[in-house]
């Protein structure tokens, strides 16, 4: 069966959820091989998890150069693998960095690239949503080795057993791939909450929340549900919540099982980042707010009454 390369998203070997989704999608096209690029020890840590989602092989490229320079080393290693193995396709996560790796790889291998893919068929056709989620398209690659950047949370990860046999690969990085040096990494605290793009529940607040202090109400509801916190642009621009949590066209695209919008009107640019969520709940005091057009369940009311009451009730049910 044809080999399909999957670039593993991980943090020092701790595999991110999207990787299971990528391996699942890859199985529609052939036999998935996981490519683990990172610091020494990453592949060993990642191995068990990758086996659970059907990785037959693990190509381990461990070198400080991978994380020491921006994007280019990963693309170089992948390009070499593509040349040596002639895989049926390459899958990466549609994160900012994943798309950049894919872009460089597309240039190196003269291959077509599809981004923000939400499904892949056995014949290689991919589903994509475009124009803020307003349109669904099917696309295919016409040239080279198809490269798919797959949107997190779009595909349900299905376990399958894989041999996960490890093969070490050489990481030799050219001078031009060393042009941009990463000198520092700063993690800005999000506490113990899940990462926004990966979370299966997101609770977001908008201008209606009114202040940074009031965002505690949103955080409490999120914590009762084990959710990530998001915000509209009006909320981040007003300084209620840090920009990195912005959902929408110019922020993150999320596609969780459940999205709870509190005090958010539902402008098209906000919908762009959340309308593929499976279930959408809205709390807004304006019955005409466009967010209700999307909501599976909406409460017309004051979020300062509704949200704390919901939090208390959820915590009571959990106790």
């Amino acid at each position, binding site marked *: 069966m044809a080999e399909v390369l999957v670039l593993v998203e991980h943090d020092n070997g701790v595999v991110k959820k999207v990787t299971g989704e990528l391996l699942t999608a890859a199985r529609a096209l052939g036999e998935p091989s996981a490519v683990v690029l990172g610091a020494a020890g990453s592949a060993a840590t990642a191995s068990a998890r990758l086996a659970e989602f059907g990785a037959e092989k693990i190509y381990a490229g461990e070198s400080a150069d991978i994380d020491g320079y921006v*994007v*280019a080393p990963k*693309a170089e290693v992948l390009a070499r693998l593509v040349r040596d193995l002639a895989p049926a396709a390459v899958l990466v996560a549609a994160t*900012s960095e994943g*798309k*950049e*790796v894919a*872009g*460089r790889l*597309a*240039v*190196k291998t*003269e*291959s*077509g*690239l599809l*981004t923000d893919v939400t499904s892949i068929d056995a014949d290689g056709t991919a589903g994509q949503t475009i124009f*803020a989620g*307003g*349109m669904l*398209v099917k*696309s295919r690659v*016409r*040239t080279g080795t198809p490269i798919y950047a797959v949107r997190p949370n779009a595909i349900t990860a299905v376990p399958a057993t894989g041999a996960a046999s490890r093969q070490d690969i050489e990481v030799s990085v050219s001078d*031009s791939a060393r*042009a941009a*040096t*990463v*000198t520092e990494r*700063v*993690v*800005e605290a*999000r506490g113990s909450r899940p990462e926004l793009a990966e979370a299966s529940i997101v609770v977001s607040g908008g201008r209606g929340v009114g202040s940074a202090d009031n965002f505690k109400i949103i955080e409490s509801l999120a914590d009762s549900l084990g959710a990530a916190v998001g915000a509209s642009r009006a909320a981040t621009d007003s300084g209620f919540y840090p*920009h*990195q949590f912005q959902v929408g*066209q*110019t922020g993150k695209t999320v596609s969780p*099982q*459940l999205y709870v919008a509190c005090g958010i009107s539902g402008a*098209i*640019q906000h919908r*762009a980042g959340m309308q593929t969520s499976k*279930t*959408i*709940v809205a709390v807004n005091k304006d019955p005409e707010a466009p967010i209700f*057009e*999307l*909501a599976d369940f*909406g*409460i*017309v*009311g004051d979020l300062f*009454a509704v949200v704390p*009451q*919901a*939090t*208390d*009730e*959820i915590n009571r*049910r959990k106790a």
Partner: protein
Amino acid sequence: MNIVVLVKQVPDSSSERTLHESDKTVDRDSASLVINEMDEYAIEEALKVKEAHGGEVTVLTMGPDKATESIRKALSMGPDKAVHVNDPALHGSCALVTSKVLAKALSTLEWDLVIAGAESTDGQVSALPAMLAERLGVAQLTGARKLTVEGSALTVERQTDDGYQVVQAATPAIVSVWDTINEPRYPSFKGIMQAKSKPVTTLTLADLGISPDEAGLGAATSEVVEAAPRPPKQAGVKIPDEGDGGVKLAEFLAAGKFV
């Protein structure tokens, strides 16, 4: 420091956007067209660097005749001149071809720094700056929320999912920016008047030495085979809060096994 800013004209995200029925490319004829939002931040950043370090700012756009409007709008913010790559054979170009054309155009210009937006709102490929860095063999400083220039040394804060990275490189380099980096200025009346007489050079594929069959829809490395509007969502439940809205909400979530 000479800077080229990449500016793309896109259909306004607040208006209705569609694909052409016939070839499934983005419909730019019926749409209201604007400068890609992130590119306004790129222009602003270029002007700031120029104000601090001198040099010239050139706007580079690949797009049809209509893109002239966006070029003038960009120039009215302050850049010195523009280059417009315009050729009917470019219609339907994929990201890979666009990057080839822009890389060729950049190689005809003198620059130390290219500044682009981190993503466009129509294609949303978000890969073009990385593709250009790859083609030109220069440093990739993408996803910046902060840029510092000291002589030929560049430092950016590159936004990541959980924070940022500090990244350093020397010119020549390609920087792409998010909207966290600055607050774009509004064109002044004087700027709008001046923009009318700023030089705009038009380049065709022939000028760039690219053959028409290497570009456009025919050479696209990927294609849209089917397109349909998202089916409308089934109307959900909407209830007024009568004092127990929070409890009702919790009940809905519990019924959906979210609790």
